[in-house]
């Protein structure tokens, strides 16, 4: 399924064409045209088939939307359910029980652990160590991969305990959950979580031992920030250059546009600037909110500047966040008391519902219009990868010259490895476009 540029390289041009990116989620391709040592065109082509999710949710009830939007991404369904449920609860002014609020953070910790463990060990580490995949890595360093799989299983087990299954959980509903676990059900996970915490800490050392291409730039970083906690379900949208807006005001600061070579829109700030979301942005903007064990790991690693400036080192940010997520999960469970009801009743209300939460790959913005029957009239869902597209292409343009001296295959691998550093989720990116034209058949 290769999708290169339609025409071959012109005279004097060098052409890098990766038909299908591997070890990324979804179908994306990379096309780079270089002339006389300068990149004249860098395209992250997304040929993932569109599934029109924004149209699929029209006419549905809020609880149905929560089940449907999970299917946008197999790796981070919790993120879509969290952004959706909080948007609806904000519009319907639903007071949720504090224990439910902490369970939702625990839910996200589970997804971060599972998603980051998958990306660090199975998708990204092989690049640093020169293996095509974790399968070959396991042949040489079996216990590293086994430790990683155990940690990933713990993340999945935590999501499954709250949501019945790790992929497309089914208990999230407006007002809370359809079922909340008993305290001892969660306590049963503590041994595995403590083991995962140790694995997370050793992951930080493992990542510290890696070496990556020296490519640095000063990106505009955007993430959530919350007065009291490391950002997940709540807070405001901030940037490292002074942006500070409410969650439902995403459209005041950012906008999307369609490009010819991709089924996914690309986002930029309203001023047309490129910006970056994800673990690197979160850690840089919220280092002071990290769990003490994670903060200690970050200082021990000593790569804060590299995390901010060099996209390859996002792997370090993910390792630090693994320590944070496992440590916070342990604390939440220790303090957990089962609420006497799994969800608070609510009444739908017509109006607009906007919210953003921090998916493993970065800020995920949802916006819904609810009609008077309580059904969805229109929807806009902006995932992190579609917002990162422009930044990825900008970085490709800046980085490419430094690898031109390498043999073609080696250079292509370095370019692919750069794309993998953003942990792109292409299936998500393909469905979310700014809704400019009213649907004709409404």
């Amino acid at each position, binding site marked *: 399924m290769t999708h290169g540029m339609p025409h071959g390289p012109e005279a004097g041009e060098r052409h890098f064409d990766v038909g299908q990116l591997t070890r990324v989620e979804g179908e994306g391709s990379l096309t780079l045209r270089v002339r006389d040592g300068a990149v004249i065109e860098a395209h992250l082509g997304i040929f993932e088939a569109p599934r029109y999710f924004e149209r699929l949710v029209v006419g549905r009830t809020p609880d149905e939307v929560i089940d449907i939007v999970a299917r946008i991404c197999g790796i981070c369904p919790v993120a879509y359910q969290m952004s959706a449920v909080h948007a609806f609860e904000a519009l319907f002014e639903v007071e949720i029980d504090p224990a439910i609020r902490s369970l939702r953070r625990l839910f996200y910790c589970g997804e971060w652990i599972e998603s980051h463990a998958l990306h660090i060990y199975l998708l990204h580490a092989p690049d640093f160590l020169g293996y095509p995949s974790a399968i070959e890595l396991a042949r040489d360093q079996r216990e590293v991969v086994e430790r990683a799989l155990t940690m990933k299983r713990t993340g999945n087990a935590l999501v499954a305990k709250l949501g019945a299954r790790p992929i497309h959980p089914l208990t999230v509903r407006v007002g809370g959950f359809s079922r909340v676990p008993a305290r001892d059900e969660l306590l049963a996970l503590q041994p595995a979580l403590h083991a995962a915490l140790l694995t997370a800490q050793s992951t930080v050392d493992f990542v510290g031992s890696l070496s990556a291409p020296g490519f640095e730039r000063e990106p505009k970083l955007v993430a959530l920030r919350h007065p009291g906690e490391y950002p997940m379900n709540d807070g405001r949208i901030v940037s490292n250059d002074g942006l500070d807006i409410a969650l439902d005001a995403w459209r005041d600061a950012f906008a999307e546009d369609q490009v010819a070579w991709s089924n996914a829109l690309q986002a930029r700030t309203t001023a047309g600037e490129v910006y970056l979301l994800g673990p690197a942005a979160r850690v840089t903007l919220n280092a002071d909110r990290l769990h003490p064990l994670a903060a200690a790991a970050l200082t021990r690693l000593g790569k804060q500047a590299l995390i901010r400036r060099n996209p390859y080192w996002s792997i370090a940010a993910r390792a630090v966040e693994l320590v944070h997520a496992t440590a916070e999960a342990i604390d939440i469970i220790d303090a957990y008391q089962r609420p006497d009801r*799994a969800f608070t009743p609510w009444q739908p209300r017509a109006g607009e519902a906007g919210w953003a939460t921090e998916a493993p790959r970065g800020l995920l913005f949802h916006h819904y219009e609810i009609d008077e029957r309580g059904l969805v009239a229109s929807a806009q869902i902006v995932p992190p990868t579609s917002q990162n597209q422009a930044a990825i292409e900008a970085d490709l343009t800046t980085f490419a010259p430094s690898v031109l001296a390498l043999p073609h295959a080696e250079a292509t691998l370095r370019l692919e490895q750069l794309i993998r550093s953003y942990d792109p989720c292409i299936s998500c990116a393909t469905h979310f476009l700014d809704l400019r034209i009213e649907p004709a058949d409404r």
Partner: protein
Amino acid sequence: MPGTRHASAHRPRVGVVKFASCDGCQLTILDLEDQLLAITEKFDIVEFAEATSNRSQGPFDVLFVEGSISTPEQAHEIVQLRRQATMLVTIGACATAGGIQALRNLADHDAFNRAVYPQPQLIKSLATSTPVSEHVAVDAELYGCPISGSQMLELLTALSIGRRPQLPDEAVCALCKRLGNPCILVATGEPCLGPVTRTGCGALCPSFGRGCYGCFGPKEAANSASLAAWFGTLGQSDEQVAREFAKFNVNAPAFRAVVEAKR
């Protein structure tokens, strides 16, 4: 491979490819954390874009296909892949029934395209999202959204030691009763598609306080008309009943029949 009792010398060549999907079913394979390394020793995974940079266009002894056919290229691509696969196994509701994106099969496709893309002309997409079995012959199917990890493991084990894979086609209710759940439809009146849905997930929804919403698609002899009529007697409007069946297996015949009758 079936019938060969002794571990065959050559490891079967296995491929995992995707069409229009969310990658959740492929990830279910990677989520078999305890058995993943044993699987990679038993089977030679030659194509699995999400997991390895080693690529192969075939031949495959077993090819797992995730995702529905929803673009002209995909309709062409699946035929090429079929030629390369001795055994083609579809995994997940997208591949077996067209997924939730098949909702557009019931609607006007242009409206869909215009509603989502400011420049719809740039998007090459078919008017319908269809299951793989409508394009090529399929040898086995793993249902579900996502598929069940234990069913994938049972299929791999059956392939490895040559027994019939134990993939029961009974209703979700059978396991729901074995687990000791009271029927949520009878006890609370909340609609539950369990009686017409194929087992596989582990009766998760009724075990977690809500009605089944049909992830594994209609079971054999699924009498969805009778259940839809019963939902009517419980006070659901035709439009609500249609929505119950219009989810991740909306394009499966037994469910689609209700959606089209009640819309």
